[in-house]
């Protein structure tokens, strides 16, 4: 058998998603599950229900994106004055103070990256759904990008945590977390789960179907 250019699926093999151990695809009846003999993970040819789950998570994330950006993230009270800040007004605050680098970090991590991530995943989902053959290598690269970069979006949540914990100076200055912080945290966790539930091998499956 010529194995060059064949996938595990075509060869009747399953690669364990956790330890990448190659097993022969077992014959399963009904709800029977197969386990990896090396690490004990459940074996799947592809992540089960990858498309449906990723769609659900991406749509949830899109819905959360609005309240996360429009509601106040922090509420600062200082000598009787009260000021609410959204994510964007925090960015503007740093810009006016001349801290360009920090304004850029928060803008990229909190506003740009979550949006890009949702758009990229939507694009990947659509391309898989329509069995596109368009530049699979670049699409896999896009997927890798969303996987690596997502965690950094959490930075704003931590900034709020630190500010809330530290600025407790009674009537002089006090910072509280606003309602957006909960939405924003949920948004980041859900986009990370969405990236995890998408199986990039689906991008390549369309190719093999057309070759066969």
């Amino acid at each position, binding site marked *: 058998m010529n194995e060059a250019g064949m996938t595990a699926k075509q060869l009747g093999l399953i690669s364990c998603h956790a330890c990448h151990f*190659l097993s022969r695809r077992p014959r399963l009846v009904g709800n029977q599950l197969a386990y990896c003999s090396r690490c004990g993970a459940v074996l799947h040819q592809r992540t089960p229900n990858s498309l449906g789950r990723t769609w659900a998570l991406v749509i949830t994330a899109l819905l959360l994106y609005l309240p996360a950006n429009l509601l106040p993230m922090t509420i600062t009270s200082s000598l009787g004055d009260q000021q609410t800040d959204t994510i964007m007004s925090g960015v503007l605050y740093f810009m006016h*103070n001349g801290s360009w680098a920090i304004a850029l*970090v*928060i803008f990229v991590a909190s506003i740009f990256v979550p949006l890009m991530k949702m758009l990229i995943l939507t694009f990947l989902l659509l391309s898989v759904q329509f069995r596109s053959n368009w530049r699979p290598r670049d699409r*896999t690269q896009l997927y890798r990008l969303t996987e690596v970069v997502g965690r950094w979006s959490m930075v704003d949540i931590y900034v709020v945590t630190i500010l809330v914990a530290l600025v407790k100076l009674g009537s002089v*200055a006090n910072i509280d977390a606003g309602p957006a912080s909960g939405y924003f945290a949920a948004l980041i966790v859900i986009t990370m789960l969405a990236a995890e539930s998408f199986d990039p*091998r689906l991008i390549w499956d369309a190719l093999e179907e057309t070759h066969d």
Partner: protein
Amino acid sequence: MPHIACHQCDLVHHIPPLPERATVRCIRCGAVLLRTKPNSIDRTLALLLAGLILFSVACSFPFLGLRSGAAMQETALVSGVQTLYNQGMTGLSMLVLMTCILIPLAQMLGLFYVLAPLKFNRTAPFAGRVFRWYRSLQPWGMMEVFMLAILIALVKLGEMATIIPGIALIAFSLLIFVLAAMLSVLEPHQVWEKLGGNHE
């Protein structure tokens, strides 16, 4: 078992004998299939022990102090979480507690449990399972993101108050570098190969 399937496009590759420092990429999609690193387990263990010591320092000493006029406020790593919790932001406080304290700690302990016996050519019971959990928690430990947040918060607070960095802050910054170095010397594929004989 000289065959491996790419985990991102499923293409099966035959892996030839490799030199000591090599990176093998998938010919079709470019994903890294595996790396070889000399003394991977020894070096990982050394950095892991350093990490555990730094982590205990970071958790038990004051993190940051803030002084504005006569008012003074000091905080430790856990007390930020506690303040959020007291404000009724339970979900948020749990998220920070998990991603910055519990998950990194669980990961370090789990990795130690797997690697320490491997160094002496033994396998701990359920080592495969523990290492799998360690790997699946990987995206959820976010201490380095927290470090970036500290820097941003310092700039923001620097104008309204005097900031006194604590010992825990220094330990925490070192911890980030030690863990990053540890991740770059740890090669999961080599660990899996060594665990290979153990069929649970």
